[in-house]
C-alpha cells in the first residue's frame, strides 16, 4: 500500500445518476440529500402504515453556542437545525416531527447528556469537543440513548479507547483523515523531493496533539522530512508570536497547524504580520477553513491550504450540483453565512440518525428501540448535499475529505477554497480493524 490517493474530482464526487438510484428509498432520505427537486414526489413511502407513536421526537444537541469556540459550534447548530427543518417539512421521520433542544456544551458534557436523558430525549447529538466526547462515551453506553457526535474527532477514540461501543457514534471524519489529507496536499503542492523540513503549531490538547502526531508520521513516511519545530499554544491563546517567531527562525518547508476558530484567525494574522510566509513555502491546516466567515482577503493571501473535513460547499460545484446550490442559498438566507464543514457535522449527524430510524421503521413496522436504531446505524449509508456517507462498524463516519487553497470571494464575502482535492476515505484512513498509527508505519 502506498497511501498515495488519487485526488481527481470525480473519484470522490457522486454521479447524479447513482444518487437518484441510491437515494430514492424514501422521501425523507431524498429530502435530506437535497434532491427533492430532482426526483419529485414519485417515490412511495413504505413507513406510512407502520405502528408509530404520534408525539414528536425529542432530540437534544450540545454544541458551543457562545464565546470563541462558537465559530464552529454555531455552524453545527445551523446544520442540525437545517436538517430538522427539512425533516419536518417533509413530514417527519416516519411521520414523527423532531423537536430539537440546543444547549451550550461548555465543560459539562456528561451533565448535559444526563440532563437530556433525564428529560426523556429520544436521541442526542454533539459535542464539538474531543475531550468532551471521550468523557461521554462510557456514560452513553451506560444510559443507552443513542448519541451521534457531530465532532470530537480524536482518532484513538473508536480505534483504541472504545472499540466496542454500542450507542455512541461519530459522524464527522476522524483526525487521521484530515491529517493525511494535509500530508498529501503538501506533497502535491511542493513535491516530495522539496520537502526536507516541517514544523507544527497546534492547540495544546488531545486534538492538536493527535493531529500533529498523525501528520508527523505521515509526512516523514512520504518525504523523509525532519521536524524542526513543534509548538503547542493554549487553546484560545491571546498570542502566538512566540511560535511564529520560532518558525521564522527554523525556516521549515511546510508548516502544519490544526488551530481552529479564533486560534486560526490569530495564527494567520500574526503569521502575516511577522513575515512567516517569507520563511516557509506552505501552510497546511485541516480546519483553518472552519473560520471562513471570520477571515479577510488579506489573511487568506499566501501559500495557505486548508482542509474542510467531509464537506466543502462548492464541491461538487454549485453550478453543477443543485443540492449543494440549494443548501448554500438556504443557509445564506437563513443565517447569513457560508456553511463550513461544521455545518455538515450537525446536518449529517441528524441525517444519519433520521435515515437510520426511518429505515428501522421500514424493516420492523414499528418504532425501533434504541439498540435497534444503533444496530441499523452500524454500516448505515446515506446521502447529504456533501455526497455519500457511511457509518462504519467501528461507529466512525466515513466520507470524502476535502482540501484546497484558501482564497477570497467578494461575492460571498467569505473565504473560499480553490483547486479542491477530494480524498476518498480508503485513501486517508486505515482499513477496518487497523489502528491508524500502525497503518501509517506499515507504508
Amino acid at each position, binding site marked *: 500500500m502506498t497511501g498515495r490517493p488519487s485526488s481527481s474530482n470525480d473519484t470522490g464526487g457522486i454521479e447524479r445518476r447513482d444518487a437518484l438510484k441510491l437515494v430514492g428509498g424514501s422521501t425523507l432520505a431524498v429530502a435530506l440529500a437535497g434532491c427533492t427537486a430532482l426526483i419529485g414526489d414519485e417515490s412511495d413511502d413504505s413507513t406510512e402504515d407502520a405502528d408509530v407513536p404520534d408525539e414528536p421526537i425529542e432530540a437534544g444537541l450540545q454544541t458551543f453556542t457562545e*464565546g470563541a469556540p*462558537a465559530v464552529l459550534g454555531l455552524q453545527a447548530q445551523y446544520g442540525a437545525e437545517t436538517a430538522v427543518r427539512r425533516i419536518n417539512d417533509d413530514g417527519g421521520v416516519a411521520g414523527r416531527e423532531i423537536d430539537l433542544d440546543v444547549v451550550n456544551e461548555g465543560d459539562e458534557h456528561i451533565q448535559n447528556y444526563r440532563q437530556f436523558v433525564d428529560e426523556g430525549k429520544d436521541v442526542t447529538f454533539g459535542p464539538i469537543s474531543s475531550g468532551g466526547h471521550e468523557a461521554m462515551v462510557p456514560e452513553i453506553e451506560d444510559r443507552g440513548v443513542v448519541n451521534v457526535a457531530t465532532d470530537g474527532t480524536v482518532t484513538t477514540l473508536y480505534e483504541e479507547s472504545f472499540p466496542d461501543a454500542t450507542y455512541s457514534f461519530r459522524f464527522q471524519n476522524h483526525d487521521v483523515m484530515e491529517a493525511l489529507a494535509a500530508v498529501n496536499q503538501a506533497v502535491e503542492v511542493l513535491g516530495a523531493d522539496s520537502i526536507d523540513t516541517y514544523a507544527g503549531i497546534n492547540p495544546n490538547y488531545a486534538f492538536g496533539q493527535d493531529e500533529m502526531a498523525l501528520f508527523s508520521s505521515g509526512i516523514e513516511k512520504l518525504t523523509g522530512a525532519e521536524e524542526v519545530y513543534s509548538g503547542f499554544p493554549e487553546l484560545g491563546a*491571546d498570542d502566538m508570536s512566540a511560535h511564529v517567531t520560532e518558525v521564522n527562525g527554523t525556516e521549515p518547508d511546510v508548516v502544519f497547524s490544526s488551530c481552529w476558530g479564533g486560534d486560526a*484567525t490569530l495564527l494567520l494574522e500574526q503569521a502575516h504580520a511577522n513575515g512567516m510566509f517569507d520563511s516557509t513555502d506552505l501552510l497546511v491546516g485541516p480546519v483553518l477553513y472552519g473560520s471562513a466567515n471570520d477571515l479577510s482577503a488579506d489573511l487568506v493571501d499566501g501559500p495557505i491550504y486548508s482542509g474542510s473535513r467531509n464537506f466543502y460547499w462548492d464541491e461538487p460545484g454549485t453550478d453543477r450540483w443543485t443540492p449543494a446550490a440549494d443548501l448554500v442559498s438556504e443557509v445564506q438566507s437563513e443565517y447569513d453565512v457560508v456553511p463550513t464543514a461544521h455545518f455538515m457535522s450537525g446536518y449529517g449527524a441528524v441525517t444519519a440518525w433520521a435515515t437510520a430510524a426511518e429505515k428501522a421503521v421500514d424493516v420492523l413496522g414499528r418504532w425501533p428501540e434504541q439498540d435497534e436504531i444503533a444496530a441499523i446505524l452500524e454500516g448505515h449509508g446515506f446521502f447529504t448535499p456533501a455526497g455519500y456517507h457511511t457509518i462504519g462498524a467501528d461507529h466512525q463516519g466515513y466520507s470524502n475529505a476535502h482540501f484546497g487553497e484558501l482564497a477570497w470571494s467578494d461575492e460571498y464575502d467569505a473565504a473560499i477554497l480553490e483547486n479542491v482535492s477530494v480524498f476518498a476515505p480508503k485513501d486517508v484512513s486505515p482499513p477496518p480493524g487497523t489502528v491508524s498509527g500502525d497503518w501509517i508505519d506499515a507504508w
Partner: protein
Amino acid sequence: MFESLPYHALNGVYYGFILFMIAAGLTIVFGVLGVLNLAHGELYAFGAFVAFSIVGYLTGLVAEPTGPVTALIFGAVVLVGSLAAAAVLLPVGATLEAAFVRPIYDRDDVYQLLLTYALLLILTDVMKFVWGAKPLDVGVYDGLNAIPTTELFGIDYPTYNVVVVAVGLVVFGWLVWFFDRTKTGRIVRATAIDREMATAIGVSTDRIFTLVFAMGAFFAGFGGAMVSIGPGSAYLEMGLSPLVLSFVVIVIGGLGSLRGALVGALLVGVTTQVVTPYYSELELAVPFVLMVVVLLVRPEGLYGTWGEIE
C-alpha cells in the same frame, strides 16, 4: 536554538504592556476602594467589543492605507477610536459603582467579591445581548502594520506591537503624573491612605470612589480596545485569563503600586514569552510560579505599599 531570543523578549515586552494596561485599572481600584473587582475582566472585554463597533465605524469612513501617509492617518483614526471606546467605559464604570458597589462598602470583603462576581455574570450577558455570541474581529491589524516603524531600522517587526508599547508607556506616564502632580490625584491618594481623615478635611469620598472606579473601568476598556485592534478578536470569555493574570501582576508588583504593576507585567510578559518556545509545557505555570515565589519571599510584592497608590 536561541537565535530568536531577542524577538521573544520583544514579544514579551509587548505582551507585558497589554497586561500592564489591564492590571493598572485593577490595582488602582483595589488600592483606593479596597475592592478586588472580579468584573474587571468583563470591563476589559466590554472595551474590546465597544472598540469593535467604534473603530469599525470610524475606519469605514477613511480609506484603507496605501502609502505611509494614509497609513499614519489610518493609525490615528484607530487610536482615536480606541480612546473613544475606552471613554464609553467611564459612564459604565461610574454607573456600576454608584448603583451597585456603593451600598456595600461597609459590608465584609467577601460580599464585595460576590457582588462583583454577580456583575461579571450580568455583564457577560449584556455583551452577548448587544454583540452576539460569536467572536468579532474589527480587522484593522493589517492596516496598522502598514505604518512603517521598525522597517526604518531594517528590522521586520509588527508596527502594532510598537504602538502598544508606546501607548502603554504613555498610560504609565499619565498615571504617574496624575497621582504625583495633580490635585485630584493627590486627593485620591490621600483618600486611599486614610478615608476618615480625607472625609474630615472635606473630601467627598463618594465622588472619589466613583471617579476611581470609572478610571479603573476606563483602563480596563482601553486595554480591551488595544487587544481588539490587534491580531486577536473580541469574544465573550476573553476577560477570564487576563483577570487572573492581572492578580498575578499586581501581587508581584505590590498591591496598589503602579510602578510595581509595570514591573510585574513586564516580568510576567517577558518570562512567559521567553520560556514558551523552549519549554512550552511551562507556559501556563510560569506566571503563578513567579507569584508564589515573590509572595513567599517578599509578601508585600516588589514595590509593596499596602493600600496606597504609588
